[in-house]
């Protein structure tokens, strides 16, 4: 049976991981290159093994083998083939297997690099990676076997890995089907991106631990892992953005971020990862913050595991379901062990991680980066405390509480605004020393431009006083900070491109292109900043100026909002059939005409789908989308008997598309920054630090 073969592969992968752990330690103790090489090969072997296990699972999904419990839970005959493939990460057991597969892919890739200059790191990198992989594969082998089969016993049908005595295999006629919310294209790509981001951060952690164990506390480990970290950060960012878009498209509440604990679980490692990407520059440039960088990498790894634990253990539902969950305590122990072992190593090496310089100016680049780190960590503390407080409250008082968006928004709003402000000031300061005078001189032009644009925006509001609401003062502050930061960033691009254009007598766009090509990290970083600025404008638009209304109307009646008029024209109910001609989902679809100032704009079709296999509904909004705003209509309810009336919830989301456009720029910037140099080994950070005393954006 193929399922048994798949399980056998998982067991072998687990054993190979354990062997890699043993061989790396033994090789190090015995100073035996043969054992160390053997551990590396064992690590590399896990990739084909997990690939094989994943392919077996995918085959079972595609071939509708409902004898396998996981296949039954996440797929059905009505689902198209591509959805059956993506159902691999549509349930707990499969997503753990997928996690392991991606981890083995990353770790195999890293073990294939040239190790000539870093031989001493190899066994420890293999050790950390193998421990992590053994843990995740172990979860599959011992607790969440995706290849568990159904068995018919005397007492009924039961899922089990091994055949119970006297049982015969049981195969249901059809599966339960994938949760409809997971059938959106965004959700198909979103989990792989998040997982790639998660597993990617295992690499800097593995090298950091290797540096601590071997005592090689220079910044070689940060140099090796710089691009790996950027790629991990890119995938995690992409995962978060896609998750937001998915929420906007299918969750049916007109927003993109609900401060849901699952969202926050993915956001927390992003926060520490972003802080690390900034602070590691201080180590490379000034030899400072070595302890802090280690702490950030250890925190990021722990938060990656913690995030997976939060979403997989059932602890978010209740501490009691966590206690009943098989994998919850296992995760808890693993997080505890790895965190305390890492902390112990760090304390052991603490004296050797002494800074090689000290800060000399409050306005220096490193001082501003330190403030940036403080803000990221402050946001992390708010998020972490907000996520775990309901659990602590339940444990201590027996009563659960809800920590929802109002808490997070009030606590993090000023911190995000301060971060954007720093993003505007920091590129103008110099490494080592800056004064108020030099900084003031550099910022004056962008500041004047920002004041002019802000004045124009205020005039617009004065001419349209109905747009002014209770959030207006906050919006003005937010917009001013954002616009100023935008001008600083554009000014930085222009100054360098203009200088090169004059020196080389070439077109300014050619200069810009070549400059960016020569210093991808700097200009990639600036592009990311531009993306964040655009996203901030979108967030200010939807968070502070969103309006909504809800009403029940009959055919040809209208609802008005923000200058738009939606008129309910028709309601249709019909079944969509699968490839075999069987009903797959029931669709209730409203036809709505949208007008603005009496002029017809478009026809929208908000709908509610009901999936027969999973017995779950999905709300799909009708959206008229422009860069100025989104007119977003949800079909909330209707009278099925008469089809004459329906309830609609309508949102007006100003500027929301700037968020998505900014996200695309953000991702583009990360690509630029992460794209490999021709030969990075020949150009280490400190060696390149040449006569340029003032290095904006480095």
């Amino acid at each position, binding site marked *: 049976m193929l399922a048994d073969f798949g399980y056998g592969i998982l067991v072998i992968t687990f054993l190979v991981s354990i062997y890699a752990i043993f061989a790396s330690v033994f090789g190090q103790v015995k100073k035996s290159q043969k054992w160390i090489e053997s551990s590396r090969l064992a690590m590399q072997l896990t990739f084909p093994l997990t690939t094989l296990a994943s392919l077996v699972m995918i085959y079972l999904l595609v071939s509708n083998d409902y004898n396998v419990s996981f296949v039954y839970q996440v797929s059905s005959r009505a689902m198209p083939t591509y959805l059956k493939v993506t159902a691999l990460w549509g349930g707990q057991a499969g997503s753990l297997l997928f996690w392991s597969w991606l981890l083995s892919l990353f770790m195999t890739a890293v073990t294939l690099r040239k190790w000539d200059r870093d031989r001493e790191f190899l066994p420890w990198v293999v050790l950390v990676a193998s421990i992590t992989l053994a843990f995740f594969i172990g979860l599959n082998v011992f607790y969440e076997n995706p290849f568990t089969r159904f068995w018919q016993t005397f007492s009924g049908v039961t899922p089990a890995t091994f055949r119970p005595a006297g049982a015969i295999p049981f195969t249901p006629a059809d599966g339960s089907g994938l949760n409809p919310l997971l059938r959106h294209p965004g959700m198909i790509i979103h989990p792989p991106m998040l997982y790639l981001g998660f597993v990617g951060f295992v690499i800097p952690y593995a090298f950091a631990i290797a540096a601590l164990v071997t005592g090689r506390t220079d910044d070689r480990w940060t140099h090796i892992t710089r691009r790996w970290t950027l790629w991990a950060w890119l995938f995690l960012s992409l995962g978060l953005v896609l998750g937001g878009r998915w929420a906007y498209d299918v969750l049916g509440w007109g927003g993109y971020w609900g401060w849901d604990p699952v969202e926050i679980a993915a956001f927390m490692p992003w926060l520490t990862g972003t802080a690390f990407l900034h602070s590691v520059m201080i180590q490379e440039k000034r030899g400072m913050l070595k302890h802090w960088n280690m702490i950030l990498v250890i925190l990021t790894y722990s938060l990656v595991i913690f995030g997976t634990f939060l979403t997989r253990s059932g602890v978010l539902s209740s501490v009691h379901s966590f206690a009943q969950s098989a994998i919850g305590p296992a995760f808890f122990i693993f997080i505890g062990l790895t965190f305390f072992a890492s902390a112990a190593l760090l304390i052991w090496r603490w004296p050797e991680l002494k800074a090689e310089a000290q800060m000399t100016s409050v306005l220096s680049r490193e001082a501003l980066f330190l403030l940036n780190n403080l803000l990221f*960590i402050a946001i992390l503390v708010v998020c972490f*405390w907000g996520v775990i407080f309901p659990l602590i409250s339940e444990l201590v008082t027996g009563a659960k509480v809800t920590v929802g968006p109002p808490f997070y928004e009030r606590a993090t709003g000023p911190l995000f605004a301060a971060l954007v402000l720093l993003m505007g000031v920091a590129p103008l300061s110099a490494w080592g020393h800056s004064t108020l005078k030099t900084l003031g001189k550099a910022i004056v032009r962008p500041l004047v431009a920002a004041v002019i644009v802000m004045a124009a925006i205020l005039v617009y509001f004065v001419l349209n006083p109905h747009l002014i609401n209770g959030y207006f003062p906050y919006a003005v502050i937010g917009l001013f900070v954002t616009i100023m930061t935008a001008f600083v960033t554009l000014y930085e691009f222009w100054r360098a491109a203009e200088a090169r254009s004059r020196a080389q007598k070439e077109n300014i766009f050619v200069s810009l292109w070549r400059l960016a090509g020569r210093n991808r990290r700097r200009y990639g970083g600036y592009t990311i900043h531009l993306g964040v600025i655009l996203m901030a404008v979108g967030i200010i638009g939807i968070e502070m100026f969103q309006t909504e209304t809800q009403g029940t109307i009959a055919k040809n009646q209208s609802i008005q909002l923000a200058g738009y008029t939606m008129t309910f024209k028709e309601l249709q109910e019909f079944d969509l059939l699968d490839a075999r001609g069987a009903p797959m989902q029931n669709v209730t679809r409203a036809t709505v005409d949208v007008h603005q100032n009496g002029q017809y704009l478009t026809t929208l079709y908000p709908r509610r789908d009901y999936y027969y296999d999973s017995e779950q509904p999905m709300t799909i909004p009708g959206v008229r989308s422009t860069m100025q705003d989104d007119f977003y209509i949800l079909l909330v309810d209707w009278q099925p008997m008469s089809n004459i009336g329906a309830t609609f919830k309508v949102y007006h989301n100003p500027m929301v598309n700037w968020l998505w456009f900014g996200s695309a720029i953000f991702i583009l910037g990360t690509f630029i920054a992460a794209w490999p140099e021709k030969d990075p080994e020949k150009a280490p950070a400190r060696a390149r630090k040449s006569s340029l005393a*003032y290095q904006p954006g480095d």
Partner: protein
Amino acid sequence: MKRLTFLFFFVLVLALAVGMPASAQSPNPTPSDDEVNAIARDMYCPVCENTPLDVCPTQACIQWRELIRLKLSEGWTEAQIKQYFVDQYGARVLSAPPAQGFSVLIYIVPPIVLALGVFIVLRAFRSMHKPLESSARETPPATTPDNDYLRRVEEELQKRD
């Protein structure tokens, strides 16, 4: 007397005329969906975790919204309605815990940690201007960015090209 009687009836008629619409409005008109959602937005039902009450499509949440509508039509205030649900189902129905009892910790721990972080950063700033003897790295000298900047970029580009 006649005048007084006329005045009395005039005031009576006026009072009735003014009072009629008010009494006609009682009981209160059915609150709109927007009025219900304004309260439901900040509430969660215990079953549908992480889905605000105003957008949750389940039957239980629809019934809760109708209960809010009923209470509003009976003249209850937002605070009274929320307290009613808290009394029935506990503080978890609110989108943020009330700042009392154990829940006060949710509001005071982050500022304390932030203050600690600020203290650490300030300490780092206070120890400035004490360069280490073993300063292995090149510390770039202070510079005036604006004028020197273009010259340096050009120098750098000349050198690289």
